[in-house]
């Protein structure tokens, strides 16, 4: 089912304005080369679903005006503090923030993965999240007595977008222990992946690799994009932290962010 694209502009061209886009956190496989191509083509109105939290990628997309709604359990730049463009946008009221809690986002995706309308989840009761998320319901557990429990509705993204180490020519993608990427692929209508390398050998033919592989059945678009997480490091923490620190200091102001963005897009 997977289509291999020859360039990243073509790869992102089929991601429409207003798409409900599932993205992983900065420490997982963030598709930043694809994000840059999305900003370049001036995509608008994205509904980002952070699985379960967001970082640089979401902050850049928000700063560049691409985002209408962010659904996340949290957003920051790791040790480098608040996500400045997100903070500014929320204070200005220019994006809709759908606050969540990490397990609720996983549960919503698992509901979509299972094709069920909701998943129950313990905890959360008494949190103001229930007040600001009227789409989360509380029912009395039908298997208990006077036992309120929260129901999280299914989250079905239009597109899951992430970066991974390797795809094979059959369209299978290896993610290893990053199973949240597999959950995103199962739960989303389509899955777009950029990869460091493309190999000929079938990943599913190797019993060790197969265990960490998303089958091509779930993958719609693949783009070979070495360094596709830059400026973040892919399994290179020094580069990773340095980029976050640099961004965090520049993006404190609109002007500083625009400088960073111009450099990045150039």
């Amino acid at each position, binding site marked *: 089912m997977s289509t291999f694209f020859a360039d990243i502009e073509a790869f992102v061209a089929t991601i429409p304005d207003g798409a409900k886009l599932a993205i992983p956190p900065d420490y997982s496989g963030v598709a930043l080369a694809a994000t840059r191509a999305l900003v370049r083509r001036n995509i608008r109105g994205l509904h980002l679903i952070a699985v379960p939290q967001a970082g640089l990628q979401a902050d850049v997309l928000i700063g560049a005006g691409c985002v209408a709604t962010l659904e996340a*359990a949290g957003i*920051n730049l790791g040790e480098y503090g608040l996500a400045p463009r997100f903070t500014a946008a929320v*204070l200005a*009221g220019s994006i809709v923030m759908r*606050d969540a*809690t*990490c397990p609720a986002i996983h549960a919503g995706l698992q509901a979509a993965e299972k094709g069920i309308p909701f998943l129950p*989840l313990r*905890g959360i009761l008494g949190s103001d999240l229930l007040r600001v998320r009227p789409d989360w319901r509380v029912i009395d557990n039908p298997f208990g007595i006077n036992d309120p429990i929260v129901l999280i509705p299914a989250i079905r993204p239009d597109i899951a977008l992430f970066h991974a180490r390797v795809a094979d020519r059959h369209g299978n993608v290896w993610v290893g222990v990053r199973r949240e990427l597999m*959950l995103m692929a199962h739960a989303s209508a389509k899955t777009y992946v950029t990869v460091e390398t493309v190999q000929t050998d079938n990943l599913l033919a190797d019993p060790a690799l197969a265990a960490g592989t998303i089958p091509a059945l779930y993958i719609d678009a693949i783009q070979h994009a070495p360094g596709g997480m830059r400026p973040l490091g892919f399994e290179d923490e020094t580069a990773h932290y340095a980029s976050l620190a640099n961004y965090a200091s520049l993006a404190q102001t609109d002007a500083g962010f625009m400088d960073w963005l111009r450099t990045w897009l150039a």
Partner: protein
Amino acid sequence: MSMPAYTNEELMASVMARLLRGLRHVAVGALSPLPATAALLAGALDPSLRVTILGARAHQCFTDGGRELFDCAAQGRIDAFFLSGVQIDGNANINLVGLGDYAHPVRRFPGSFGSAYLYHLIPKVILFRQEHTPRIFVPKVDFISAAGTSPAHEYRPGGPRHLVTGRAEFAFAEGRFQLVSVHGDETVASVRAATGFDFLSPETVPMTSAPSAAELVALRGYARTQVQEIYPAFAAHAFGG
């Protein structure tokens, strides 16, 4: 007043580590250098304690994706966890979202992360916050990310049991904080002045026990080495010696 032979972070970490004694498994969230230090210290002193630190490859065994921490907690396999807040109130409600009205906040913070869930499911949640001022410890949080207490009929195997700050240690029981000990030169009165909510306390409380020699060795040896890899900035200033 003499210069203490340990940093405030080292004192807090040793207090937090002592609260983990006898447990099987403590987990530490991402972006939590002080809890990570405490958990590593506790693990160094008790090798039977399993220490899970999210975001640190060397201290994490999960293989089922981002949901595993939360499933694992709900299965009862995690005994202790640490939470903090931009505000914490006298009912142990914590706020990680923002100040002012939610729809029109005056300040916005990252968000609730897993707190709304883990606070209910992990038996011993240890609240921590180094800055101990009335702007943090408020009468009532502006937004309840996670509720400190629940009605008796609600399913809640977990909840807050302790609070460790830069000035003092508290216990939390029956919906109230109780002062347990004060650090260094603090007094009941100075802690009360720094705290925006009321708490139980005898007239005088003991001084928090300083880190022992063995604790300092483990802190500045094993714990520091491990923390450095995860939180280089924190490690650069938090450890003495």
